[in-house]
């Protein structure tokens, strides 16, 4: 309970978001359903679920300590890796190699746990990259080797390496961000990314105009991009003094960067789903899919955000 008073500003912001989410979940959503039963609200419901995980996760994280959040983020990496491996083709012979791919998660988060940045940042790009082929040569077969290997490396790089930067934000020293610590920075980033995602989707849905990438996505339009960017910058500017050491100008630039790189993440992952002939499985089924739809932008923004903050506040 002690930590509850350590970052009072973070607790205030989380509480405000919980109040907002209660409103959306229990008042806005039923009203929308009542107004137009044909409205496809699955995507909204899926976003609401993810927001609950984020807000309650961070609330518990503030209370019991950020190590809990580290485990939660490791678990989200696991879900993302599992979904990615489940929707991509793989070779029968590589079944056990994929087991080694899962093992990268506990190791990667162990480096974060002990705060060893040097190992954290080279472990997957260097060591996993060099040595994961070994079990594949021993257990697998030569036909299709390079193809299977490249796919697996791309999956581990995005679902584990990129995403785990979110975890390293948590263990940044308090001196870097006296207002809300590393946990505040992680919360700030996740909120910006999710706000941007939702705003681009909603603005794009309201105004049907020219699409950013017509070949790939029908839901992301130029007005969606600009609306999302505006709202993200606004939220960044509002939250920055509560949660981060950023000045107003820095916060505005960060909002712009999150909006643009978030869109890049969305586009790349949409291209992957198109290639796999696999559109929005997460909303199609009531089950466990759909985590990739929620984290595609984070994969791109998390490393960038980490490097910006450590560059500006060394």
């Amino acid at each position, binding site marked *: 309970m002690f930590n509850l008073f350590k970052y009072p500003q973070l607790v205030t912001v989380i509480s405000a978001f919980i109040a907002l989410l209660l409103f959306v979940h229990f008042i806005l959503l039923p009203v929308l359903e009542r107004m137009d039963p044909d409205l496809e609200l699955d995507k909204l419901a899926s976003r609401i679920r993810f927001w609950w995980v984020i807000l309650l996760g961070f609330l518990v994280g503030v209370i019991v300590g950020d190590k809990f959040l580290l485990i939660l983020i490791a678990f989200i990496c*696991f*879900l993302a890796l*599992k*979904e990615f*491996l*489940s*929707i*991509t*083709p*793989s*070779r*029968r012979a590589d*079944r*056990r190699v*994929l*087991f080694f791919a*899962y093992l990268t998660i506990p190791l990667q988060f162990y480096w974060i746990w002990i705060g060893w940045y040097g190992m954290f940042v080279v472990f997957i790009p260097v060591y996993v990259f060099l040595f994961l082929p070994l079990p594949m040569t021993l257990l697998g077969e030569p036909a299709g080797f390079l193809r299977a290997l490249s796919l697996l490396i791309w999956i581990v790089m995005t679902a584990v390496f990129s995403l785990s930067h979110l975890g390293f934000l948590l263990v940044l020293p308090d001196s870097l961000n006296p207002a809300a610590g590393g946990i505040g920075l992680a919360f700030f980033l996740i909120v910006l990314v999710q706000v941007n995602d939702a705003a681009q989707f909603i603005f794009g849905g309201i105004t049907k105009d020219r699409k950013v990438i017509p070949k790939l996505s029908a839901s992301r339009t130029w007005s969606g991009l600009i609306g999302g960017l505006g709202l993200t910058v606004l939220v960044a500017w509002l939250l920055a003094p509560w949660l981060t050491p950023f000045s107003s100008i820095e916060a505005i630039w960060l909002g712009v960067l999150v909006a643009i790189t978030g869109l890049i993440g969305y586009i790349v992952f949409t291209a992957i789903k198109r290639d*796999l*002939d*696999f559109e929005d499985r997460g909303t199609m*089924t*009531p*089950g*466990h*899919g759909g985590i990739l739809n929620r984290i595609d932008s984070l994969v791109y923004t998390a490393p960038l955000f980490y490097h910006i903050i450590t560059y500006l506040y060394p």
Partner: protein
Amino acid sequence: MIPLLRVFFFVCIVRPLIMIIIGLNVFDKRRLPLTGPAIIAPNHNSHLDTLTLLSVWPISKIDRVHPVAAADYFLSNPAMAWFSLNVIGIIPIERQKKDPLDDPLATSSEALERGDILIIFPEGSRGLPEIMDSFKSGISRLAERHPDVPIVPVFMHGLGKSLPKGDFVLVPFFCDVFIGEPVYWQGSVEATMAAYKTSMESLAAKCDAPAWE
């Protein structure tokens, strides 16, 4: 005591394992019969099939759901026999008739009369992972005796990748469960099996799984 143990085993061990490590996507869950008598007839890829299917029912219903399993395998030693009979709740079936007068379906038939839900794998054994084998006709022979009891075809994909026959390393993949429309006794064993096979093939076609060669 033993029903409690069964509930504990499913609530504390099986469901967390299946939901967290594997992850289920159940399609057309409303077709799942919640009360018996009924025969659930899934394809068989992995030891996890039975536990996964049992996780689809609400916990309050599983005391009436019984997998029909090979006596020669699951009753082969006392510890496994106790666990299979009391915790998993299997109904043992003799795969090889010792006496030509024996009726291997008698225990299953009695269970249906009690109003239980039976899980019967018509492929008989797990076979090659993620490849459907030929079906044995036991489900039809039960349907012949109980023409009002529905056979519910269930197609599962993914567990053969997670834990195939002959391997002990569990690698997590999503499991998709497709539940079909019930099939009833069609007047002959062949016709019933054909109807079941057609239904399974259409369920398998709905599952566009990524290549696994």
